[in-house]
């Protein structure tokens, strides 16, 4: 179980304190499968880092029962100077494993990451997909009570995604997940409840559908993950046209996402 008690987190900026969470209180039950939603920069990664214990709130308390993984993201947990093998052994050592217990884990990670000869090369030469495979393999090689996963679905090919899906199914039977993602389909398939971070406020929703609905309401993103064309967008287009020198033709229309439509919706990224 993880309990947040009146947690406030801010970052000092040149224009004053930037709050990512204000007085947030929530209790995440053991084995919960939670999706975390929020715009880019809303504080999802900060929340994940605090839940994992690699960052601390400015005020309030986070109380954790049981073991919690390090935040698993695109590149976190993989040290660039070390090879894949050394990264795996490092993780084994900090988990307090003895030398004879490391080899099965190294073999598992090598087989899961499936990056061939790169496993014995420094991680600085890896692509982001290879790093994600390695980082994911290392994390999943250990049993935690909670896994913290931060927008990992953005990388990796279909083989990796299928492997990740399989291992998620296996792990979720005995562990909880807190997972930040912008992919509604993925969150609906894998999470039972949700957290929405908006304007430094944290909302906990008992079902993931309610969480997505709240996120859609706050951000204007459509239910399928696309940003709605708003009045503000239209205003910006008008302003751009007004700034264009007289007589200059408008730039050619961009490739549309949906053929046959003059103005397609903007794909939500990140």
């Amino acid at each position: 179980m993880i309990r947040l008690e009146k947690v406030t987190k801010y970052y000092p900026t040149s224009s004053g304190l930037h709050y990512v969470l204000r007085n947030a209180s929530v209790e995440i039950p053991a084995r919960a499968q939670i999706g975390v939603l929020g715009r880019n920069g809303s504080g999802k990664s900060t929340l994940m880092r605090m839940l994992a214990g690699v960052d601390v709130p400015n005020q309030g308390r986070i109380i954790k029962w049981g073991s919690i993984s390090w935040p698993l993201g695109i590149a976190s947990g993989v040290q660039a100077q070390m090879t894949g093998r050394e990264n795996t052994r490092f993780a084994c050592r900090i988990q307090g494993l003895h030398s004879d217990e490391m080899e099965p884990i190294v073999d598992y990670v090598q087989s899961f990451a499936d990056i061939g000869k790169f496993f014995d090369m420094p991680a600085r030469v890896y692509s982001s997909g290879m790093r994600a495979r390695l980082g994911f393999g290392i994390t999943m090689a250990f049993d935690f009570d909670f896994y913290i996963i931060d927008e990992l679905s953005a990388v990796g090919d279909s083989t990796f995604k299928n492997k990740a899906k399989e291992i998620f199914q296996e792990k979720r039977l005995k562990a909880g997940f807190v997972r930040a993602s912008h992919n509604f389909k993925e969150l609906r398939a894998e999470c039972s409840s949700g957290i929405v971070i908006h304007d430094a406020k944290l909302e906990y929703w008992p079902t993931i559908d309610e969480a997505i609905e709240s996120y859609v309401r706050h951000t204007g993103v459509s239910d399928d993950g696309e940003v709605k064309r708003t009045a503000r967008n239209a205003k910006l287009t008008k302003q751009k046209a007004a700034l264009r020198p007289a007589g200059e033709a408008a730039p050619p229309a961009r490739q549309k996402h949906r053929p046959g439509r003059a103005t397609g919706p903007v794909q939500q990224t990140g």
Partner: protein
Amino acid sequence: MRQGTVITVQDGGQDLIRGLKRQVSVVTAIIFKDFKVRQRTSKFGIFYVLIEPMVYILAISSIRFLFRSTSVDGIHVLIWVPLGVSAYLIFKRSITKVTSAITGNEGLLDFPQVKPIDPVIAIFILEMALTMVASCLALLIIWWFVDISPSFPRPLEAMGVIAVLLAGSFGVALLLAVYGTFYENIPRTMRFINRPMIFLSGVVFPVSSLPTNIREYLAWNPILQFIEHFRYYAAGIPMIPEADLGYACFVASVLLGLGVIAYYANRYRLVQSR
């Protein structure tokens, strides 16, 4: 405003032994990692650690030979110089190598098991082990080559002096590592300030040959005190009248205390500053 906290409860409570075990595992892991990385990135890096004491000893001995003296206070220069250099290098390398331990290992703080003090401890242990092994090798090679050896009248006291020097050096390294994370000019400035220390600590020239009024000022330098006592206990080389081990131990304790306080006071800020 009260600082927020993260509390981990496992098997009914927090356990000091578990915390200690965690720290030993993490420090061991960082030592292994750092040694491997150094080995791979630059073979010369490890080699340099080994030859540095030798280069120092040969350079300083050459200066002595230039002044046409082969003995200091009646002791062969190749005993007097290497003993001083060995003790001095402990302080020098903790100032230059350990102070970047936190900033240089920031990525490791992505693991909740790793606390900012762990890389400082690990790199201090690795650096000091390498420095001491290298110094011992250098001393043995040089003494074997010129067929001389010190008498080692009080080896335990000599080791005790080195142990207190290590404690004080760790305190300085921890202080600089903590504040160097917030103010990047601090380690650079300290390296600059450290440069004249070799001349002010009686490594190159014997302080005993200086006038009393200058010696009284120099005696405030704790490194000089440690070097004087180390030479005395290791080879029976007479100390300056101002030598005071109590003062040196007091300074080392204060430095260690300040280092620990600085870390404790900033332990959350170090994590938040990333």
